[in-house]
């Protein structure tokens, strides 16, 4: 029997991080309909901002978070104003927006690489250390990081809930998500709501980035590596459901840490195969239920289990069926 205390702590921590990142991704997709690959770079920007605040300027966690949120939100806002909004105005397809977000991501990532090389922090780890509170077993320590990150996620979730249900801006976001034209003719200031959406998504990415820099070494690809998992979490939420995204984040975090521990100890599979799990999740969700958890009921689950094998066979058959 493997020791599961370590994976449990890891999945709490990773799940919270993926949830924060995936929430930003989901919100921007909902409001602006962009599958935003540049979200990875917003996280990386936050990560480096945290390192600059802590390692270079010698500040604490609070200042690091503040700087990271400002930097990431600024990057997100700039990307929207310069690229996404003009494209949206000329009614670009969502595929063009996706490709544009990849372009934005490349530019941000490598400009950041150049800046980081110049500053000599291309590959760095935050000087801020997580102190161990309780040691549960070999390699399984409950650190302050395990308290900060879930707390940050929980407060983000509560804040988002209040925003979406109690404030005009949040309700405006929901209106824009369900019908943009109707929202605009109803007098919702769409340009302002859109700007706030980007600031919000960038800010969440900045928080996640700062915690990444404390949790693991930072390099320009840190966001890109996490992006696959972030997309998996968002896709589990169907890219629209906030509660589905939260569930998705923790499922992804748990399957990463538990999945690889179990595969490693039971089947001797190397831990480096980790990204395969994210891919399996993405492909499985798209093939079984492209809307993810959004609008899922218990009845749907039971129906799906009953009909799934037959349906899959029928689908494969239809591919190779003769014309008729």
């Amino acid at each position, binding site marked *: 029997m493997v020791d599961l205390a370590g994976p449990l702590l890891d999945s709490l921590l990773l799940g919270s991080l993926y949830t924060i990142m995936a929430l930003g991704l989901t919100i921007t997709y909902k409001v602006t309909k962009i599958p935003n690959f540049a979200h990875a770079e917003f996280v990386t920007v936050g990560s480096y901002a945290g390192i600059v605040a802590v390692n270079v300027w010698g500040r604490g966690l609070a200042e690091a978070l503040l700087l990271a949120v400002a930097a990431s939100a600024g990057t997100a806002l700039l990307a929207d104003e310069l*690229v996404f909004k003009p494209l949206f105005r000329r009614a*670009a397809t969502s595929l063009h927006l996706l490709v544009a977000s990849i*372009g934005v991501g490349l530019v941000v990532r*490598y400009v950041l690489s150049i800046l980081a090389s110049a500053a000599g922090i291309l590959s760095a780890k935050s000087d801020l250390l997580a102190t161990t509170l309780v040691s549960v077993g070999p390699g399984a320590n409950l650190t302050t990081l395990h308290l900060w990150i879930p707390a940050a996620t929980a407060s983000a979730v509560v804040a988002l809930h209040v925003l979406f249900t109690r404030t005009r801006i949040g309700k405006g976001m929901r209106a824009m998500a369900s019908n943009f034209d109707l929202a605009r003719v109803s007098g919702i200031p769409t340009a302002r709501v859109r700007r706030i959406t980007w600031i919000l998504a960038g800010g969440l990415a900045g928080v996640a980035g700062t915690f990444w820099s404390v949790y693991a070494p930072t390099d320009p690809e840190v966001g890109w590596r996490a992006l696959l998992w972030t997309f998996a979490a968002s896709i589990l939420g169907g890219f629209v459901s906030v509660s589905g995204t939260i569930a998705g984040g923790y499922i992804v975090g748990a399957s990463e840490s538990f999945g690889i521990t179990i595969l490693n100890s039971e089947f001797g599979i190397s831990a480096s195969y980790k990204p395969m799990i994210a891919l399996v999740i*993405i*492909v499985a969700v*798209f093939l079984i239920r492209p809307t993810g958890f959004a609008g899922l009921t218990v009845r749907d689950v039971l129906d799906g289990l009953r009909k799934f094998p037959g349906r899959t066979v029928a*689908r494969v058959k239809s591919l190779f069926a003769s014309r008729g």
Partner: protein
Amino acid sequence: MADLLFLYTSIATLFGIYAILALSFNLEYGYAGQPNLGKVFFFSIGAYVAGILVAHGTAALTGYTGDLFTAQAANARLLYAAANPGTILSFFIGALALAGLVGAGFGVLASYPALRLRGDFLAIVLIAVGEVGRVFVRVYTPLAGGNIGIGGVPSPFVFLGDREARVAFSVLVLLLALGTFLFASRLSNSPLGRLLKSVRDDELASNVFGKRTPWVKAQILAVGSGIAAIAGVLWAFWFQTVAADDFIPQLTFLVVAMVLLGGAGNHRGVLVGAITMTVLDHVTRPSFYAILGFEANLAFDINYLRYILIGLMIILILMFRPGGLLPEKPVRTPALDIARALRRPAPAADTLQAERTQPP
């Protein structure tokens, strides 16, 4: 004096390989509307087919049982190639054929998600497939040497001598690129090409007209992926190594930038895009400055500039010229020319009439 032959052959060969890749992406995306952003995955399949065939093939022929992925093994392969040029040439031809088939097979598999997903979600899945494929090969070492990769894939024209082999290989790649261009042009002006456009523009309508759109998608992804795998073989035999980290997603984005720059749905435009991006690709590589004989002394890795340029190029094209430099043109078929030719005499008859009715 710097050896400019090295530079010319390098630009020509990479242009050929990128052009083949971009043409295959244009068939899938520009014509059929299937954004295969996992292009690098199908490309790497070709490279690995070539590398594995050469590494395991020469080992089987020479009875070598040690580690295939060390520098000594790579050197031994190059020596073996010099001694048996015929074997290597047949390996090369075999790899081209096999890679085409294997790539096409994986392309058919990729069409399964394409049945159910819209453009942008399909793109997400295929990017993930490409990235995970790279991770898998890097970790799973027995097949292809993981991160170190397969070294010592010899040039198929090793019997010609070093410089001549480079030139011969460049010419071959350019010829293959020309062949791909002609093939793609023929394909896209055929009934299948028009069917592809109909699937792209309105899948429901082509379904209504009795076209089996799933099968069309499977076909075009098979053709595109097969072509991409052939480009991968050429890459392996040109660089003489196959390493997992050559196949990063940025390579796909480079190809996307070529197609968008030139104009999706226009093969000539894609060639223009390919040559532009090949030159950009070259001037941002350290080897370019090494050939010219001076050292680029920068505080950062010059490769970063390349990716910034690719990203900027993608953004600027989408914002200011979404159709590309040479936008898509109406379909040209013989039927259209015949119709024009038939219509032309009509005004002539009118003038004849007018002359006749004039009083003498």
